[in-house]
Every structure is written in C-alpha cells, then in structure tokens.
C-alpha cells in the first residue's frame, strides 16, 4: 500500500533528514517506527501525507504517486489517512463531539451522517458519556482517545500516529494500544512512531528502525532494540 523508492529528504539549510530510504508497507500491517529523536521518523510520516516533498525518490500511496500529486489533490489524500499526534491537536473551544464532527464537516459530510457516525466512534473509544465536554476538562488519555476517534471517523485506510503515548503514563498507554490493535484488526493499516520500548517489545509487530536518516533494521516480529 505504501512504497518508498530511494527517498532522500534534505531540508532547507542542508539538514539531511532521510537518506536513500526504500521500504514497502502492506495493507493491514501494524508498523512501529523506532529510533532516536532526529532519526527521521516524523519526516518519513510527513512524506506519506505530503506535508513534505522528498528531495529525491518517489513515494507511492495506494498506487498513486504522492510526489507528483497536484496541490488540490492533497486534501483528498489526507482524508484517507487518520492522524494522531503526541500533543493531541484538539480544538479547545469545541466539545468532544464537535472535535470529532469537525473531521467530517471538513469533508462536506451531511448533518445526518455526522449524527450517525460520531456517537459510534465515541462509543468505540469509550467516551460516549463525554460527548458534550470540552477537551480541557479531560485527562491526557481521554484527550488522546478523542483524537483517535477523530482519526477513524472517516474510515481511513491508514492511521499515522506520531508518538501517541509520548505524553501519557504507562497504564494509559497500554489502554490506547489496545484501541489501536482493535482498529488494526478491522483492517486499517497503522504506522506508529514511538519511543515506548516495553510496548514495542510486547506487541511483536513489524519494527522499522531509523538511525541518522537511514533504515538500519526492518524485522517482521521485532523488538525495540536489536537482539543479536
């Protein structure tokens, strides 16, 4: 589903974020991206949803060349991808329901569709009772659940999570991981950049390790650190 061919990304100012990365991710996979800060994990995800363009090489998503996409096609690419961030990126002046509904409004969904889908996903993430609450009154874990609900409400084929548990305690992190596993079992591909060693080790999923902008390890049922 996702193909990187010899991708190099150099930011203005000469900072080399990725060097000659080639990798393939199949539909339905659950992939951890690991590696130290600055290894290029975020850049790699940004190339998929075309927040950044590669300096060299090609990125394909669902058979479409993201690199050659026209700017006005980009929104439609992003509607197929659900995004979860470390800092949640919820809108503080909107309620939980409105935050999730916003993802649908943006695509031009009707009020009827919104009223049907939003309660369903809020129920899935276990926040049905907090629909009318503002994000500021929720715990970090609950806020991240809202952002997960927002990411899945448009039935994306891919979820990109950039350190989704980075700000959360271990117990909450595990609950969220179960949620991501659930979503993955329904067929949604998940790419997750993370530093949570115990989670990666316990989940036994594919692990891609980046270091200095290169893929240094790619294992089917990997762990956080390389085991000789």
């Amino acid at each position, binding site marked *: 589903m996702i193909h990187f061919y010899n991708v190099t990304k150099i930011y203005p100012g000469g900072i080399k974020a990725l060097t000659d990365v080639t990798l393939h991710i199949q539909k339905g996979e659950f992939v951890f991206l690991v590696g130290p800060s600055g290894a290029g994990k975020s850049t790699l995800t940004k190339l998929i949803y075309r927040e950044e363009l590669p300096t060299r090489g090609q990125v394909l998503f669902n058979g479409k060349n993201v690199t050659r996409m026209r700017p006005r096609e980009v*929104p439609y690419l*992003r*509607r197929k*991808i659900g995004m979860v961030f470390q800092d949640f*990126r919820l809108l503080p002046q909107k309620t939980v329901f409105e935050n999730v509904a916003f993802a649908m409004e*943006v695509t031009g969904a009707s009020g009827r569709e919104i009223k049907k889908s939003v309660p369903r996903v809020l129920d899935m993430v276990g926040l049905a009772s907090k629909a009318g609450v503002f994000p500021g009154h929720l715990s970090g874990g609950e806020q991240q659940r809202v952002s997960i609900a*927002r990411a899945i409400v448009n039935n994306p084929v891919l979820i990109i999570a950039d350190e989704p548990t980075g700000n959360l305690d271990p117990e909450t992190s595990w609950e969220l991981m179960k949620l991501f596993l659930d979503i993955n079992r329904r067929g949604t591909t998940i790419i997750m950049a993370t530093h949570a060693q115990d989670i990666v080790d316990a989940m036994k999923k594919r692990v891609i390790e980046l270091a200095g902008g290169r893929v240094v390890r790619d294992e089917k049922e990997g762990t956080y650190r390389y085991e000789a």
Partner: protein
Amino acid sequence: MRLRNVYYYIREAFQSILRNSWLSVASVGVVAVSLLILGSSLLLVLNASNVAANLEASVEISLFLKDNTTPAQIKNLEDRLKNTPGVVQVEFVTKQRALEEMKKNLGDNKDILAGLEEKNPLPDAFRIKTQSVDQVVPLAQQLEGLEQVEQVRYGQGVVENLMTFSRWVRTAGMVTMVLLGVAAVFLIATTIRLSVFARRREIGVMKFLGATNWFIRFPFLLEGMFLGLAGSLLAVIVVYYGYFSLIGSIQVSLPFMQLVSDRRLIMPLMEGLLIMGLVIGAAGSMISVHRFLKA
C-alpha cells in the same frame, strides 16, 4: 462548493466574529474610519468639481461688432458662428438690450446712464457658449480675425486659471481616493491577519484533516466581507447624515454657498462606499489567509 457547507461557513464566520469580538470591533472601526475619510473626500471632490462645472458653464465669449455692421452682415455672421464646431449656443444682443441689462445691474444707480438712449455707445454683440472650456481660448483667437468684429472678450486669464483649477481638483481627488483605498485594504489585511493568527491551530488541524483550501478560506472571506460591510455601513450613515445636516446649517448661515444636495448624485456615492467596504474586507482576508495556507 457544496450547498450544505454554506451553513457551516456562516456559522464559523459569525462564531469567529463573536469569539474575537474586540478584534472585530477594531476591524469594523478601521474600515469605518477609512471609508469615512474616503467618503468625506469624495463629497469634497464632488462639490469642488460641481463648483468648477458651474463656473465652466458660465464662461462665454462676447463678440463685439463694429458700429457700421449691416443687418445682412449680422445674419451672415450668426449663421457662420452657428456652424462652427464646438459652439453650442449663439445669442445676438442688440445695443438696446445691452443697455437695459446694464441698467438692471446698476439697480439704484441707473441714473448714471440717463440720456444715453438717444446716443447709445454700446456695440451690438454676440454671446457664444462652447461645449467645454477647453475650446474657449482657441475659438476666441479664431473669431478675432473675422471682419466686422471689433473686439473679442472671454474673461482672458480667468478661463485659463479655471481650467487649471478644475483639472487639479479632479487629479487630487483621484489620487486621494486611490491612496485611501489602498490604505484601508492593508489595515483590514492586518486586522484579519490577527484573526487568522488567533486561529492558526484550527487551520493546522483543518489541513491535516483534509480540508480543501477553499473550505479553510471561505469562513475568513465571509468574516472579512461582513466586517468590511459593517464598517462601510457605519461610515455611510455618518457621512450621509453628517453631510445633509451640514447642508441644512449652511443654507441658514451661508446661503450663497451651494452644496450638491441632489440625492441622485449622492446615493451612487454611498452605494459605492458600501461595495468598497465589501471589497476591502474580502481583499484583506484573502491576503491574510493566503500567507497561512502557503506556509
């Protein structure tokens, strides 16, 4: 653009106006003040060019004839004048009529002229009006060469000054209008930029959720247009009522000052101001949002 989004756009625009109420008031104020100045200067230009036009309309060429001119020669000359390009009106004034008019102008002092009826020293004359003032000077020079013409008078000097004056008024008016319009656009752009900046998080979220640029832009466009319209409405109300009350008080204290009070002239000006407000608001918000969508 989908119809079902319209409700969303309007709701977002008004929510943003209410949420940033102080900023909104400031924007409306900026537009109002800019258009107030613009509207006042427009009225000033309107009046100045009206004065100029009135003066221009009263400019005429007097063609004094020699004393021995025969009626046939007069008829001949009249036909010739009427067929000259640029001439719109030719009036023959006999020496008797010239004397009558002189008496009327002198009023109580008309006794000075007593006894002149038998031996009238005034010449017969033609009064000629031209299409525009620009034609007065060349035409006058051309007429000087005609036979039986004693003298040509057209307020030498005054006409030339008047032409410079009205040209100057029009140019100054245009320059003022353009400058103030540009200034208003940039002031609105700055204020809307603050409103866009206040919502940069929201714009960022919209972008990764897959909102099209027009979807992001439209509420801001509506917001800008509404603020612009509100500001211009305020300016129009103040200018309109201010101007007509000025006319009212001037008619009492300075009756010889004639301000333009024709609503058929004033109304298009007010409508123009309203449209200006709308355009300024739209232009301002487009400029501000554009920079955020690029980044």
